[in-house]
């Protein structure tokens, strides 16, 4: 259905869900489609050409996180990496203990894997978070026992953007000789993570969150960490993850990881400026808006706001009608219409948790576009508040 003479801006503010493919990544992938269509496991030159590209990608990813290439395993994405890390490490180390520690605000691909392990007889402790989404370190220390074999805490939260004290957790795990896994899917473009120096045992990465292609990710597994194979029936990835190599996607993963590191400083600076400008403008024209997550220690492109009295999905659709793409909570859970488990875990009132919208900016947004977003936001919230039965009280600060 063509819209007549309507020039509508389209503004994408959902980079937390996925990012557009970078030109450099696209070009390398395109070249590899034409030049390296062989099966990377084949012995002939076609296979070797593909294999060479995969090894280059492996080196690039390894360099980006300060790992060794033989510690990098390619997967189908963040979910697989998370599933594999939790299930694979727990099952392989069952003889050492049956206790796993994670947090209440992890991605469902971690939480569901933990639930599966509970069915298999493992015991899982879920560490709570404070109002700003930071894990309770004292609780973590208390939770560790002689039976603990794995700690999995995300590097930065996908919904509210709060960054966790990775180094401290890694050191704690190291001191107790426990494997530490971190879901760095959201963080890798924003934080420098030196797995070797920090003593991280396993880490999940996804390409499409850092301007790479969808359907490919990485699980870093430190040499010496025992992990069960995830896919059976082939010698790929040392027999741990069987299946024909997705050469082109892996090429894209490698390039995306390289770019994420080389452009990190510049991107972080740009995103921080955008965020500051956006929040300032929102604060100028709106009231009864709450910033969720940590005020400063958060992903640079993430702003999660609760608009009191306004239900998130309705606001999302109003903004969508104005050409602005945002999300409620995370895209992974958006079908459910329930309040975000992350915000509830942070102790938020259920209505307020339902009133949250996540804006995840890209570096290409202009101040004029931010102004447009804020104006649409103001109008939409006003409209929805007029319909809402929720009374808006003057918000009192924390005592």
């Amino acid at each position: 259905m063509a819209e007549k003479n309507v020039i509508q801006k389209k503004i994408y503010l959902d980079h937390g869900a996925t990012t557009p493919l970078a030109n450099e990544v696209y070009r390398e992938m395109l070249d590899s489609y034409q030049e390296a269509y062989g099966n990377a496991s084949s012995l002939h030159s076609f296979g070797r050409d593909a294999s060479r590209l995969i090894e280059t990608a492996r080196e690039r990813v390894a360099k980006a996180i300060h790992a060794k290439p033989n510690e990098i395993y390619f997967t189908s994405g963040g979910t697989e990496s998370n599933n594999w890390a939790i299930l694979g490490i727990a099952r392989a180390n069952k003889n050492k203990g049956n206790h796993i520690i994670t947090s209440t605000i992890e991605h469902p691909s971690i939480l569901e894997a933990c639930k599966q392990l509970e069915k298999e007889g493992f015991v899982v402790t879920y560490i709570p978070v404070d109002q700003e989404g930071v894990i309770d370190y004292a609780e973590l220390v208390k939770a560790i026992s002689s039976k603990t074999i794995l700690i999995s805490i995300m590097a930065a939260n996908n919904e509210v953007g709060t960054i966790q004290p990775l180094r401290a957790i890694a050191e704690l795990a190291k001191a107790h000789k426990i494997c530490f896994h971190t879901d760095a899917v959201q963080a890798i473009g924003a934080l420098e993570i030196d797995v070797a120096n920090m003593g991280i045992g396993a880490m999940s990465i996804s390409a499409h969150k850092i301007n790479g292609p969808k359907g490919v990710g990485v699980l870093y597994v430190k040499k010496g960490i025992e992990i069960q194979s995830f896919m059976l029936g082939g010698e790929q990835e040392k027999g741990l993850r069987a299946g024909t190599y997705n050469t082109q996607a892996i090429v894209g993963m490698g390039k995306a990881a390289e770019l994420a590191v080389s452009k990190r400083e510049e991107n972080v600076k740009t995103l921080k400026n955008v965020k500051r400008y956006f929040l300032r403008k929102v604060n100028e024209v709106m009231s009864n808006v709450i910033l969720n997550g940590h005020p400063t220690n958060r992903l640079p492109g993430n702003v999660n706001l609760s608009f009191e009295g306004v239900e998130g999905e309705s606001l999302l659709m109003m903004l969508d009608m104005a050409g602005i793409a945002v999300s409620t909570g995370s895209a992974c859970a958006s079908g459910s219409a329930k309040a975000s488990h992350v915000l509830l875990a942070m102790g938020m009132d259920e209505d307020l948790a339902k009133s949250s919208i996540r804006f995840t900016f890209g570096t290409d947004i202009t101040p004029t576009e931010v102004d447009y977003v804020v104006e649409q936001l103001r109008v939409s919230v006003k409209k929805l508040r007029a319909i809402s039965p929720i009374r808006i009280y003057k918000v009192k600060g924390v005592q």
Partner: protein
Amino acid sequence: MYSQKTLEIFKKPTNYGTIKGASGVGKVRNKETGDLTKIYIKVENDIIEEATFQTFGGVVSIAAASVAASLIQGKTTFTAEKYEERDILLVLGSVDENKMYGVELAVDAIIAAVANYRKKSGIVVTPRANARKLKNDAETEQEEEDVTIDSVESLAEKLSKALKKLKEEE
């Protein structure tokens, strides 16, 4: 995901707001999703002279409540409480299964509003054969008055903190 009609009504709902001195108010909430719909009615000689709605909820919940409020206007309370989900769907078109709770809320709110009106005016209807049972929890008005939010930091405070920290970083 949403029918064109649903989106149209969502974008421009009618009959929203409250009625001062309403004869009856129905307030229902879906436990699972937290969506909340209220219908206000002003009744004279058993005719609903005016009906309005308020909704805290998704696209379908808002559109369905708007349809519900306009459907019952000018009808007797007996006709109003006879409306069912399919009457609202006739206006909205198709609604996804997982968003149907919004339509149920609208119907429940009508029934609850009529029941509230009868209770307030001491009308006893026996047998109450017309209305179906509520599918969601009805809430009373008093509960709402108690709601306070005191555990959240205002954006202004958080923001000034954040800006200060950022300045320090530079």
